Every structure is written in structure tokens, then in C-alpha cells.
């Protein structure tokens, strides 16, 4: 039998890069990254503090006004959950020798957890409930890459 012919569709012809505007709430969130600061916002009805900030509290089904209810938050939190994986997201064919530790961190003063990598830590040292802190990049640009990761404190 002859070998199967494979066509790699679109290679070199089409790219479809999306330029998402992050919106007014996330604009403010990322602006604060430039000052190495974390902000969230609070639902005026249930009192839950969201980080990143949200336009709508899903549970209460109310808009959180853009100019109100902002909360300054520390860059520390509690590790609520974690996982360790040898895989890159888009490649399960090769396992990395140095697995990545990814944690769910509840920032102090907030009611939700955010998912980010843990750095400078050995997998066996990771424990749920431990205190962690953001390691900011030296020259923040106001985008998600400003958070290098969370470190143990």
C-alpha cells in the first residue's frame, strides 16, 4: 500500500491572529501591573471580591459599576490546589524533563482563585495551604507576562 498523502492545510498561506481588546475592567487591572500592583473588584450585592475584576457577578446577575467597588489587593495568597505536568499544552508527544508546577492561588482578600505557575520550588515541596507571593518581572509592561510566577514565602 502506498503511503497516505497528508496535506497540512493553510501552512504559509493563512494566519488568523485575533487582537482581543481586554475591555475597560481588564484595562485597569493591567494598568496596575505596571506599578506591580494587584486590583480586584467587589460585587455590591454578595460582597465577593474578584481578581481579575469582573464586569458582572454571575451569581447575583448584577453589573459591578466600572467606577466603583475597586479593591486594592496584596500580592500574597494561599495555594488552594496544584498540579504538576511534564507536558506542554500543545504537545503530548514529548515530556519535559523539568515538569511545570501550576497552582490555584486565592489572593488574600479575594474570594476566587487564579491559576498560575509556581517558580523556584521543587515539586516535593509544594503543599496546599502554603503561603505564596507574586514574583513580578523587573520591567512590567502591563500584560499577563508581568507575573513571572508565584514563589513560596
Amino acid at each position, binding site marked *: 500500500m502506498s503511503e497516505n498523502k497528508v496535506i497540512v*492545510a493553510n501552512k504559509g498561506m493563512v494566519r488568523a491572529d*485575533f487582537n482581543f481588546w481586554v475591555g475597560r475592567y481588564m484595562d485597569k487591572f493591567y494598568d496596575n501591573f505596571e506599578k506591580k500592583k494587584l486590583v480586584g473588584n467587589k460585587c455590591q450585592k454578595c460582597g465577593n471580591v474578584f481578581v481579575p475584576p469582573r464586569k458582572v457577578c454571575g451569581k447575583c446577575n448584577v453589573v459591578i459599576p466600572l467606577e466603583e467597588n475597586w479593591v486594592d489587593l496584596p500580592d500574597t495568597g494561599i495555594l488552594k490546589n496544584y*498540579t*504538576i*505536568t511534564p507536558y506542554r499544552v500543545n504537545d503530548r508527544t514529548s515530556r519535559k524533563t523539568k515538569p511545570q508546577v501550576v497552582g490555584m492561588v486565592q489572593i488574600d482578600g479575594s474570594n*476566587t482563585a487564579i491559576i498560575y505557575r509556581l517558580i523556584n520550588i521543587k515539586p516535593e515541596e509544594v503543599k*496546599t495551604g502554603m503561603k505564596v507571593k507574586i514574583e513580578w518581572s523587573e520591567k512590567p509592561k502591563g*500584560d*499577563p507576562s508581568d507575573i513571572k510566577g508565584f514563589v513560596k514565602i
Partner: protein
Amino acid sequence: MEKVGIVGYYQVQLQSEANYGRYEMIFEAVRGALDNAGLKKKDVTTVISCTNDYYDGRTISNAFSVEVGGAYLADESKVEMDGAHAALYGLMRILSGNHKLAVIWGGSTPSCYPYHSARLFETDPTWERPNAFVNDITAGGFQMRAYMEKYGVSAEDIAKVAVNNRKNAAKNPSSLKEAQYPNLTTREVLESGIYADPVTELMVSPLCDGVAAILLAPEKQALKITDKPVWITGVGYNQETYYLGDRDLSTSKSMESAGKMAFKAAGIKNPKDEIDVAELSEVFAHEELIFSEALGLAEKGQGVKLNYEINGDLPINPSGGALGGNPPCATGLIRIIEAVKQLRGEANGYQVKDAKKAIASGQIGMCAQNNILYVLEGGN
């Protein structure tokens, strides 16, 4: 609810790399379901498909499957979730009173697309997607750890589910060959390599190519078509919030609500005693325990104590479940088919004795954000 019957079904052999292509597979499944019921293309009045544009590598991908899916100049629409959700759409088309026969098919061929990259497109593009720490691989790890730590369940207990389902898959000829392990041990599951700690490779449902199809008809037509109809007596569906950090991953609130809705419709008061067999879409071994607890089949954290083997008190996934092969968009529809086989006494090699009432579920999203559950009953 007015009675709607499942009158035909077909599932293609699951394969890691089906070299005969997407269109032939769709045709085989839809034509197979019609043959199974002794019907013809002209009998079809509506077609609901389930695929995903990202998985198919083209937009409005059902535009390309019209002819092979039996929808040539027919009433056709698509659901971009799981085939079990497409069955809900088909059920509503029948209940509208306008249709006499609905074809529902779903499936995809992950051998020709980067599945995990496609899944990344589910995540929030303004926050989570750029760094990709949230993805379908890490989500499985978070979910299993949340469940273990909340209830003190061991990884070994979860490995037992993988052993049971993969042994069951070995009895089911239409499951994925590579998923079949007739002699698997919990130790082998635990030592099969880390996928996303604490999830190991053999606890993950293996991706594969596959398409499945079912036929739905209103009661009167169903009784004309077959002497072995299976009735949909209840259906429930529910969706949780998107952000994983907002959810209690140790349980499944959406499955709990879906269960309540479906059991109420079917008049089931005590699911543990009334249901004879369950086919649940478990993308990971731990999800089977989380789901069975959410459905009230076991107390929270006690799912592993259920006697879920084929000859047990409440057999779960006698077909092998999704751990016996996970073709995206077909997986939940195959659970419905497997429940139908049990109720019709056609599950050769893994038949549950005297199965009269079954449940089957489908899911979509990270950590099963959305679940749908059917109650099915045999007999005319």
C-alpha cells in the same frame, strides 16, 4: 413527558488513527443506524449533528457533512458540544410534533488535529490563554486533587476505576484497542507515568477517532419501527460557571442538578435502587466517582465503595466508558448507545443481567463544566 423512542443506533469501531477519513466514518454511522432500524434516507425528517469547528479545522463544518450525514436537502442543524447534547436538540425537534424521525450523529477525528491546542481556545483570551497555565491537562490534575483532599480518597481508589473500566473495555469489541487491558492492576495504573499530578496516564480517557449515530422517533412511529424501542423518560442538563477558581472541583454541581431534573421527569425517587446500569462520560477516572456521588448513587467521598463491576449492585460503564476510548463529540452519544444496548440485551460480552432502567451522561468543558443526563427505559 411525551414518549420518545430511540429506534436505531450505530457506532464505528474506535481507532487511534482511522485512515479511512471523516466523511466515510460519518456515512458509516448514519447509514448504519438507519440499517439497524430497517429505515431509508427518505424516512429522515430532521438531522442534528455534533462536531466542533476547531476539531474539524474549518468553520461551519456541518456544511461539509450534509450528504454523508443523511441531510441532503433535509432539515439540518448542528450542536457544538457533545453528541449527547445534540440528542437533546433532536428530542426537542421530535417533541415539537413536526418530525417523525430524527438522526443524531456526533464525532471527530483527533488524529488529524492538535486536540490540546484546540482546547486552549476554550480559555479566557484576555487573561488565561496567553500563558496557557489553564488547559484541559492541568484542569484534570486540579479536579483530582480537589476530590482527593476534600474526602481523603487515595490515588489507589481512583486507579481502581481505571482498572475496572479498562477491563470492561477489553470485553467490548467496539472500544479502542489501545484502551483494552484485560489484566490491569492498580499498581500499573499508578506507575503509568504522570499526566498532570496526581492524574496518571492510564487514568485518562484515550483520545481517538470515532463517530456515532442514533435515531429518535415519537411513540407511535417508534412502535411501528421496532419491537425493541428504548424510551427517553427523563433528561436533565446544567452548566457551572466558567472560572475553575470559582468552582468546588471536589464535586459536580452541574451533574447534581442535571440528575435531579432527569430523575424528577422520570419519576425516580431513589436512583441507587431504581437504576440498573449507568454509562457516565468520565474523561478521567476520578470523574466517574465524582459523578456517581453527585447523582446520589453514593455518599460524598464514598463512590469507590460502590460495587460498580458488571455483575455488581450498580454496574457503571460496563462498556469501558470514556476510558475505553474518547472520540470528542461522540463520547456522550456512545454512552447513550451503550445504555440502549444494555436495555435491548445486545451488549454481547458485557451484558448486565435484567437491565430495565439505565442512565447515560455526556459532558463538555473544563472539569466537566456542563453535564447532561438521560434516563432510559426498555420495553414497549
